[in-house]
């Protein structure tokens, strides 16, 4: 088993991974980061989405070794000192979940989208999020949450600009 050092949520984590072992299993079963979910293991549902250098990535199809040089962000890495990100806040404010099992992947996919494109149109949101599945059917609220987070981010940037 190769020894790896994974940069997860800003911390270097030494870990042993099997040959070809997906990042998903390493995160969940070896690093105790169970916020990243298994939904299909085939890259179809997005429940296992993490960010590699900010890009949304299916951790179920990514060998852990392939992520060794990347900055890995999981759902657990978003909150800082009790402060949620605008996307997390927006999901809470819109009540954009039912069972919540897809939420980690949704929040990370939305985070990556808004980083890339701070003001996506409704069609762009739908296009970017379409690979993430919510079997409870909460899609309209998730779209609303991404829109809300988009305007939140803007408010926060403006506030930060005003303080300078």
């Amino acid at each position: 088993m190769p020894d790896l050092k994974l940069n997860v949520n800003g911390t270097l984590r030494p870990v042993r991974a099997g040959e070809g072992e997906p990042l998903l299993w390493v995160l969940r079963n070896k690093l105790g980061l169970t916020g990243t979910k298994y939904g299909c293991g085939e890259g179809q549902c997005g429940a296992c989405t993490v960010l590699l250098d900010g890009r949304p990535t299916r951790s179920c199809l990514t060998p852990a070794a392939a992520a060794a040089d990347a900055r890995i962000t999981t759902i657990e890495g978003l909150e800082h000192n009790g402060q949620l990100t605008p996307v997390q806040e927006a999901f809470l404010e819109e009540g954009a979940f039912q069972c919540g099992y897809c939420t980690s992947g949704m929040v990370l996919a939305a985070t990556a989208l808004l980083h890339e494109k701070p003001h996506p149109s409704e069609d762009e949101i739908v296009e970017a999020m379409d690979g993430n599945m919510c079997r409870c059917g909460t899609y309209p609220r998730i779209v609303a949450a991404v829109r809300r987070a988009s305007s939140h981010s803007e408010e926060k940037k403006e506030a930060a600009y005003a303080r300078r």
Partner: protein
Amino acid sequence: MRVDKLTLEAELHEVRDRIRIFDLDRREFLRLCAGGLLVTMSSSAAGPLAQESGRGFGGHPLPQEVSAWIHIDADGRVTVYTGKVEIGQNIRTSLAQQVAEELRAPFTSIAMVMGDTDLVPWDAGTFGSRSTPTMGPQLRTMAMNAREMLLEAAAERWKADPATLVAADGRVRNPATSESLGYGEITRGEKLTRTLGGDPVLASATVWKIAGTPEPKVNGRQFVTGTHTYPSDVVRPGMLFGKVVRPQGYHATLVSADTSAAEKMPGVQVLRDGDFIGVVADDFWSAEQAVLKINAQWKVPPQISNAELFAELKKGAGDNGLSEIAAALQNAEIRLEETYTVAYIAHAPLEPRAAVAEWTDGKLTVWTGTQRPFGVKDDLAKAFRLAPGQVRVLMPDMGSGYGGKHTGECAVEAARLAKAAGKPVKLIWTRAEEFTWAYFRPAGVMEIHAGAQKDGTLVAWEHHNYNSGPSGVGTPYKVANPVTRYHEWQDAPLAQGSYRGLAATANHFARETAMDELAHALSMDPLEFRLKNLDDPRLKAVFVTAGEKFGWGKEKSTATRGFGIAGGTEKGGYTAACAEVEIDADKKIHVRRIVQAWESGAVVNPDGLRNQVMGAMVQALGGALFEQIEFANGNVTNGHFAEYRVPRFKDTPQIEVILLDRKDLQSAGAGETGIVAVAPAVGNAIFAATGERLRSMPMARERS
């Protein structure tokens, strides 16, 4: 473990359920929480639960039959113990709201202990839209009595008349003296217990302050931070990971198995027990690799495929003798005789079946995702010949079920592996296992014979359902001597069981499509035709509301844009939906907009209810348009999300949910019936645009 035949209808589960008496663990528990105030409720005396269980008092002395209990500790913390479970439907929040309401305690002081079979009273399970109409009133009654007991205890201490005291915000105040005591202070050092019977007497929803409000989900923050522990996230000390070798088809028998390569892998153990082959390993990846190295050969008996399905299902009919309403049909000016079908579909909850099993001193503890913790406990006790007190099932709020997680096969497998390994074992089914070895919403054939007069009066109605189930088969429309019948078929080709709404989806699809066909044959407006034949004011109200909000009748359907309507009632919920579809240049169907009116009595949490009804509508689109299990020779041939299409963002139309809040009526459940109107509304809209009548779900497949 394969469950070949599941009970089709939740109601049957309930009839079969038996009322349990306390075992020692619960008596011990009651003793332990003796400090403080404890209110329990006799399930046999409670009207709603007596109905749910289908049994009366049963001759057991109180307090042996208890459906739930509420405890208030010395710090004023309120703990509610119930066997209902949270699977995304928001019941953890909405039940706590009702307790807070009647107890006059802050919402945040309420904690819910749910689905832990050692701590909560026996419960049939979370299905059939029963939690709100049964558990809600029971908890409210208990909370109301707890409040009365607190007022009485405070009155005794202050030598005051309890009627002059006020309970609010978790405190009892004496307005005359300005004295006040927190609930915890009142109970400190004392043991106050009361067991209730009789019918609940409850405050009207018109005066609700906490119930009836859009309280956010209690554990929302855990979802957005990834810290909620789902069943598949449970970790135990020394835990191993399990995998099971699956047969090559249904009803297969093992011919041979070479497990030597897997056994040579470090840290891997192989367990064989008859046709059951499983592995455990230190880590999940090794377990997966080990299973791939096992070469097992199976003999799979010949089995039918999709192509033969509907003929097969009708074998349950025998000599049906259609039509039983021949005379009434003969006299009808307009006649309809049509057949409708629905395919097998999968629940596909995003969290597949998962269980962690642990044996300690002969006692088995299993954390697993299920809608029936006590049912799974029974499964485990039976499988391992254990006394009820030797099995504990815990159900962390799970990644949903939609009726698909009633059974305990994964829990039994995990327990089997853990017993052999001598260590705790986690087993999570793969998506492919979930698609193949779980159970399905039954496929069905519906035949409708109906007649109407040219003035739009319905005069003959006969509706037969083959295999999919009796839910929603009865018609809400006025018609003399209707015949509605469910024909069970015991040898259905796939394992089938409950699915959100049960057969109400299939039966509403058939009936509401047939009603649309009759309306068109009569050249009547489909909404007008329905209203003409309806007496039920609640059903009329949702039809009228949906039509108004949608703008029904304002615009005529064209070849590229169609409008359809459908509705119905089941399990105390009333719904009607209007759909708008667009047919593009490639003749593809796009559902653009659905407006659905919903009424289920007094609304407990409008935000949660709106979310749940909207979710049901999105889920409904899958079965309506493209979901279908394909199978041949004892195998599912499209058991992957790449091949089995479920609704995604792009499939989701503009959705409006209109809630009718009937504060004068008891709250009914809302988890299921929101799913029934979408498919026929969409089908009727497609017809309005294209003139093409689609009578098989999924409709987009039939059409292509």
